[in-house]
């Protein structure tokens, strides 16, 4: 039964200065939260496992069934084969991004966080910064390792390519960056909607659903619009051979990042105004 022993008014002359909340301190706090949340660790590991596992597996499959006809050979993209897992990893990373903040809303932890950081916004920025610093550290090595392993498999049938070929290194790096941006979009939607199911549904609606909807429009409209949709725009950076209808690799990725920034900005604007 220990009692508190220090009277409140015997603190240092300016008690507030010592415990002032700064963005850097909140980033540290969010790093502690990320590394101590098992579901986050599992999502990240799942994403890495999908990138590596599915990429290597798909390469092993393709090497047993190499392209035969000249058309098949011409359209065969060894980089895309090795990065197939990154497509699947979008799901895990997107859900992780959502959970980073909706997990706090679901449990009521968000109130504790917002009482500690009464200006609120540093919490959202802290989560974004921690994710942007963590995810590429895992995803960049994962995509490059997968690429190298896959190409060594594909080269048994002379199907492989190398990082020196034009656009290949950019596509491999781009896949890791795109995944990171998907996670951030998930975070933004999670902060906006404050509900796991709603945010996950709208994330996949934005990533996959919009294209389906636009596909129903007349071809003249859909061809013009499709390139500006999140997935075609963001995926441009992951393709070695750009689709002539799509935006340039970095322009497309830039547009995807802009969508993410708008979502996060809107979430931040509401976070300051809404009741927690």
């Amino acid at each position: 039964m220990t009692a508190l022993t220090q009277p409140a008014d015997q603190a240092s002359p300016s008690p507030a200065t010592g415990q002032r909340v700064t963005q850097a301190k909140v980033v540290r706090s969010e790093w502690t939260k990320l590394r101590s949340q098992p579901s986050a660790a599992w999502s990240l590991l799942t994403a890495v496992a999908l990138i590596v596992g599915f990429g290597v597996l798909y390469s092993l499959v393709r090497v047993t069934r190499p392209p035969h006809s000249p058309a098949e050979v011409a359209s065969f993209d060894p980089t895309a084969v090795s990065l197939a897992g990154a497509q699947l990893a979008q799901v895990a990373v997107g859900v992780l991004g959502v959970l980073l903040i909706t997990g706090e809303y679901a449990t009521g932890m968000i109130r504790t966080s917002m009482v500690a950081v009464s200006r609120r916004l540093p919490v959202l920025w802290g989560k974004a910064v921690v994710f942007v610093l963590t995810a590429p550290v895992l995803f960049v090595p994962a995509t490059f390792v997968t690429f190298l392993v896959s190409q060594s498999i594909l080269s048994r049938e002379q199907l492989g390519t190398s990082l020196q070929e034009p656009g290949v290194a950019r596509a491999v790096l781009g896949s890791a960056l795109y995944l990171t941006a998907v996670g951030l979009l998930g975070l933004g939607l999670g902060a906006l909607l404050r509900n796991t199911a709603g945010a996950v549904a709208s994330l996949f609606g934005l990533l996959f659903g919009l294209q389906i909807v636009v596909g129903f429009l007349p071809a003249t409209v859909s061809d013009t619009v499709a390139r500006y949709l999140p997935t075609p725009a963001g995926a441009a950076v992951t393709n070695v051979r750009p689709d002539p209808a799509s935006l340039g690799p970095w322009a497309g990725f830039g547009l995807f990042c802009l969508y993410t920034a708008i979502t996060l900005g809107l979430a931040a604007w509401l976070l300051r105004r809404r009741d927690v």
Partner: protein
Amino acid sequence: MLCRLPGRSVPASPLPSGPAEKADNMIEVQGLTKRYGDKLAVDDLSFTVQPGRVTGFLGPNGAGKSTTMRLILGLDAPTRGSATVNGRPYREHAAPLREVGALLEARSVLPGRSAYHHLLAIAQTGGIARSRVDEVVEQVGLREVVRRRAGRFSLGMGQRLGIATALLGDPRTVILDEPLNGLDTEGIRWVRSLLADLAAEGRTVFVSSHLMNEMAMTAQHLIVIGRGRLIADSGMDEFVARAGRAVVLVRSTDPGSLAARLRSPEVTVSPAGEGALTVSGLSTDQVGRVAGAAGITLLELTAQEASLEDAFMTATRDAVEFRAPATTGADR
């Protein structure tokens, strides 16, 4: 670092000596109103929570206690009015953990995270050292389990974790929403002595509860609300004396005749079995004289002291009826 060693004993700081020397750590609520849709959760509430004593915050379920606390902590924005803590709105404090320690709902922690990392993450927002985390863990008695996942905690352990979170910043003001929920007897006694210590150290302590008898043993001052409105803002003893209806138990040889003689518009008499009556609105002296004048033999005559619970029930039975006496708190 502001957190000092737990073993160091310092005499309790003097309480603020008078109105001239206004303490800067207190909670001030002015005309606070919060509307959710068409429901008025808090209705023009004004009160002040002073340092150096435990102030209990009472009200029936749904009276607006938690909403008021959220408004004070800047989590919800008031529809009208204002709430300040230690001189300014909560959200304007640069070092909020140093100003206010809060427990809102117990177990508002991610179930997969260990209690230690939960505390550490909150501490880090204010740059509070790990040693302080260890200190509060020790203080609330969670040392053995602090590395366990918080999701496996019992409600009582969750409350202790919430209290530890509230104490991290060595705050000048403490706001606890139902800290006694889920605690066993030992835990309740511990919280009671903790609150008394915090108040004795000159802090502002504001605690909500629906456990009336616990509150009676813990708080020196009461703020009572009902349907979002202030019902009473007074000392504990004063509240009980005013709102509690003293009851006299009288057992006699002729309860029927006695009851008829005692009854009046101000007095209620009800049978209590085996020749006994409970009488409210009269003192033992008055009951004894009536019986003596009628020649009725008394077997027992006892004054039953009003409890806080009785007082609370009376006060909140009709919130409107009781708003008038509450002006003791509103005349500031």
